[in-house]
């Protein structure tokens, strides 16, 4: 099918030798101007094509009310907006060559307010999948897909190193393959928690908390593969399915009561998508698992900080869990919890979802600042105006993402980023002074 923009008629071209405004010569591309462009054709093929894709159906339903635009995090830093996307497709653009295709983080805030339930969590992956099939993918994202394909993680590290963090945990972390018996909790550690240095801090903290609570747990170690949910939302359905098949095969090898995961994206995949691929079981995000147990934790010190909490889109808005992380934070001695203006259902996306984690370079050309930078400014205004505050998180994408944003917005030393498990772990240690 064609990719042409709507037929535009240019009635008149004004060509100036010199363009002078208020006495200043601004010659350049201002010299050539068009007047009275009339649309002569509305090609409907693009909308027919999108809505013909499985998942693309709802894009047609938009009635242009515009409620989505003010709540779209990307609109806050650029001109992208879900309503405008509908207009573009309706005018003949199938988005395959349009940067807009890669700007949506599938945060779901537009869907929350949409009276027609136009759902980018479905239509974005559907259109992106077609771009993936054509090999028409931004290079940095293509590299991550390749890593996932070859190594089963987005970082491109060896799967054999997936449990290397265990060495510094300070407590034994049993491998399910080695203990040879059923366990209560199979702890799915997740990609960033396993490989990223800042993610590993959360993994070690979690290991110590589980041990202190006397939980019967084990990890998959080298057998664990990426949940690849963000790759799925970025259009790599085939890759997602391949890794899901591997994980499901591994899950079936062992007996466990429930799966506890660190990454909300993995939580979303296991809870909402894996059932379609034949695996169903109890899945808990770590905040949900720990919240009912928090009274059993013996705290030995007070953290004494102002804390705000960033709701991860795939734990909060898209999966409805707002309370468990807050219950944990409120139980930690010395935490003074304050809410940012955008919280809970209206939480502001960090920019990392739906493939955004691997598109920062590409996205930078189309936005005035990163979503993580905007979020960090909001956190600073909430908890760090008179000294030091903590931005607490519950998604392994975020410590490194927000720490970069703290630096780039000049807030180094003012805002500290901590996973909730890191704060719990800290308060479980005796005061250091």
């Amino acid at each position, binding site marked *: 099918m064609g990719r042409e923009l709507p037929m535009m008629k240019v009635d008149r071209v004004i060509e100036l030798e010199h363009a002078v405004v208020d006495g200043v010569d601004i010659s350049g591309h201002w010299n050539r101007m068009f007047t009275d462009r009339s649309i002569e054709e509305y090609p409907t093929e693009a909308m027919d094509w999108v809505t013909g894709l499985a998942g693309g159906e709802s894009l047609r339903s938009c*009635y242009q009310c515009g409620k989505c*635009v003010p709540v779209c995090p990307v609109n806050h830093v650029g001109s992208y907006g879900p309503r405008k996307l509908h207009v573009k497709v309706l005018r003949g653009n199938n988005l395959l060559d349009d940067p807009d295709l890669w700007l949506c983080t599938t945060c779901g805030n537009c869907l929350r307010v949409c*009276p027609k339930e136009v759902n980018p969590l479905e239509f974005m992956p559907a259109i992106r999948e077609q771009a993936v099939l054509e090999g028409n993918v931004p290079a940095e994202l293509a590299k991550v897909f390749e890593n996932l394909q070859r190594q089963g993680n987005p970082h491109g590290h060896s799967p054999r190193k997936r449990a290397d963090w265990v060495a510094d945990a300070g407590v034994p972390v049993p491998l399910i393959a080695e203990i040879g018996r059923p366990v209560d909790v199979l702890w799915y550690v997740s990609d960033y928690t396993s490989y990223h240095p800042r993610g590993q801090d959360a993994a070690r903290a979690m290991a110590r908390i589980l041990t202190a609570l006397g939980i019967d747990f084990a990890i998959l170690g080298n057998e664990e593969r990426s949940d690849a949910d963000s790759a799925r939302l970025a259009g790599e359905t085939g890759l997602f399915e391949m890794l899901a098949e591997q994980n499901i095969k591994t899950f079936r090898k062992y007996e466990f009561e429930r799966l506890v995961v660190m990454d909300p994206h993995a939580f979303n995949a296991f809870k909402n998508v894996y059932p379609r691929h034949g695996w169903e079981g109890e899945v808990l995000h770590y905040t949900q698992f720990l919240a009912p147990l928090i009274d059993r934790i013996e705290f030995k010190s007070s953290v004494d900080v102002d804390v705000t909490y960033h709701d991860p889109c795939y734990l909060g808005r898209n999966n409805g869990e707002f309370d468990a992380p807050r219950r944990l934070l409120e139980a930690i001695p010395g935490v003074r919890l304050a809410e940012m203006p955008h919280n809970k259902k209206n939480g502001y996306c960090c920019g990392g979802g739906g493939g955004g984690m691997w598109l920062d370079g590409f996205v930078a050309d189309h936005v005035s600042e990163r979503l993580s930078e905007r979020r960090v400014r909001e956190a600073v205004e909430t908890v760090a105006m008179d000294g030091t505050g903590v931005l607490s998180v519950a998604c392994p994408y975020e410590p490194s993402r927000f720490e970069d944003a703290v630096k780039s917005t000049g807030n180094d030393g003012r805002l500290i980023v901590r996973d909730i498990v890191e704060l719990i772990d800290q308060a479980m240690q005796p005061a250091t002074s």
Partner: protein
Amino acid sequence: MSDTVLVVGGGPAGLEAAHAIADMSARAILVERRAVLGGTPDESSYAALTPRMGSAQEALDLLRAGVQDPNVEIHLETQLTACSGSVGNFSVTLEGPAGVTTETVGSIVVATGFQHFDPGRETQMYGYYEYPDVITLPDAEKMLSEHRFVRPSNGEPPRNVAFIQCVGSRDRRLGNEYCSKVCCGVASKEAIEIRRLLPDAKVYIFYIDMRMYGYWENEIYWPAQEQYNVNYIRGIVTEIVARDGRLLMKGEDTTMGRPLEVLMDVIVLSVGMEPSRGTRDVAGILGVDQNKYGFIATPGDPMDPVGTSVPGIFVAGAAAGPKDLEDTMSMAGAAAMRALRAIRGQARAEVGATR
């Protein structure tokens, strides 16, 4: 075999139906939950009627006068609590100040009306229960019926007033997929009244589509725009936050394709219609089908707008879905006629059967 018609609900539809039945020399029992007749227009202190700006109170007085008729037996503070039987011979139980009574009626007209959408159910963040200066169409109506329009927070006249359309209507997420039909006209009418009271105030209406059918186009929409300088802006607001003692409204101006962040003093939510509690309860008691929104279903639409799923039971007004007063009056007359025809047709059938 009874030749009496039970009319449930003493709002415009019920009053007009009871009056029409009496006018056709039959007997009506009119049952009303409240202590006064007049229904929602009375309870919510409607000011002027759309589109011709006549007094709502005068119109209600006329309707009330219409049931001052020996053929109409009025039961106030009374509710229908049970019903059995079938067309020609329904046995209905009424509970009121006189205690529990049972009546036999030949047919029934349901006129139990609507309720205004509760903005606490919004998916947007309009803060109706948070900010005193965020009000609804009926809240504005109450002020206008007292010939004033002020900021509820401080009693001062507003400089900027915004209406937000489609609150609680046309929304799959809320389950109210239908257009509530009257809100575009009522908002425009209130905008005119505000401009008459406060010539210095700027009044804006933020809309998705202005749905001004028939004469409402030229009788309300055009005068509001042309004579009263009401500003119509396409695009719906998503969020309202307090800013410097005023209300900052965030949305998108979809014609311009640009975000809007405008300070307002009063924001009026154009809330739509939902079935009233009475409509839901009475539908259950009578065993008539409701549509997916809880309004009473009219399976014979479009050729029969008043027949329900039960022979001998008819519906008039907003109990059957969003209606303006013109629809309501038309339906009330039609329901009255059909209710009598049901009884008389039944009577003829019974006479024929005994021969």
